[in-house]
């Protein structure tokens, strides 16, 4: 399971709380809007990512969770 942080740019109003909580993954640009690193959220930072989503004053931040793809074993039935 991988997690990515996404921001709804319309909802975002540059409060910057996400960057305070998660400076490892989120920086603020010249105008205070979040620049999010294009990487999966490492396991140890996941609780902070969850908190950043919860604390965002406009609920602009979200976590996109993609389930790991499991190989499907071929079925004998057709």
């Amino acid at each position, binding site marked *: 399971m991988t997690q990515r942080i996404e921001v709804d740019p319309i909802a975002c109003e540059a409060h910057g709380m996400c960057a305070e909580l998660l400076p490892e993954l989120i920086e603020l640009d010249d105008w205070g809007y979040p620049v999010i690193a294009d990487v999966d959220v490492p396991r140890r930072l996941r609780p902070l990512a969850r908190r950043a989503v919860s604390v965002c004053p406009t*609920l602009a931040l979200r976590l996109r969770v993609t389930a790991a793809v499991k190989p499907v074993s071929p079925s004998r039935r057709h």
Partner: protein
Amino acid sequence: MKTYWYLTRSSGAVSLILLTAALVIGIALVGRVRSERWPRFAVDGIHRAVSLLAIVFLAVHVITAVLDSFAPISLLDAVIPFAGTYRPVWLGLGAAAFDLLLAVTITSVLRERLGYRAWRAVHWLAYAVWPLAIVHGLATGSDLHQGWMTAIYVACAAAFAAAVLTRVVIGWPAQARLRLAAIGALVAFAAGLAVWLPGGPFGPNWARRAGTPPSLLPHTVSQPSPG
């Protein structure tokens, strides 16, 4: 038991202080006040904590008022406004304030599920809680003539007024009409208090006029028995 009576009065006062504090911190959040020592997510955390603490003290205030044997207040009176027998109007304002605060709290706990817009719409009601609470306190409280209680009311009132005015200024002049209406409402409320207080809670026989059941009133005129 006198304990409940003391507890309900004190927890009521503390609730008011905490409510005012939560409002002021909330305005600091909206106003994006920046501090070297306090990251804004921490201020957000304090806002939530103080609000929850206010609810806790409010719950104590309600429960002890119900448990207290002096005034006939039932649990239902605490949430259904104006239905009780003890100072129904003024107690009812407290019940209304409590209901609104409950709505604000529940929507805040469920914020992510409700979505930003629905949550925000209900959150505006927080501004209405405060005037209701203070009038309720002034009209049902029994410590009005104590200096410390008056000081608390004055301090909270000043903080509330300052908070509302600050909020109006943030984002000025967008939606100017709404902002002017808010200022007007604040001024009207203050004026209303100024007119009402001297002849009301600070006037003679307030307990009777407020709707205290006659059996509870301190002075009863005794009729001389005939013959």
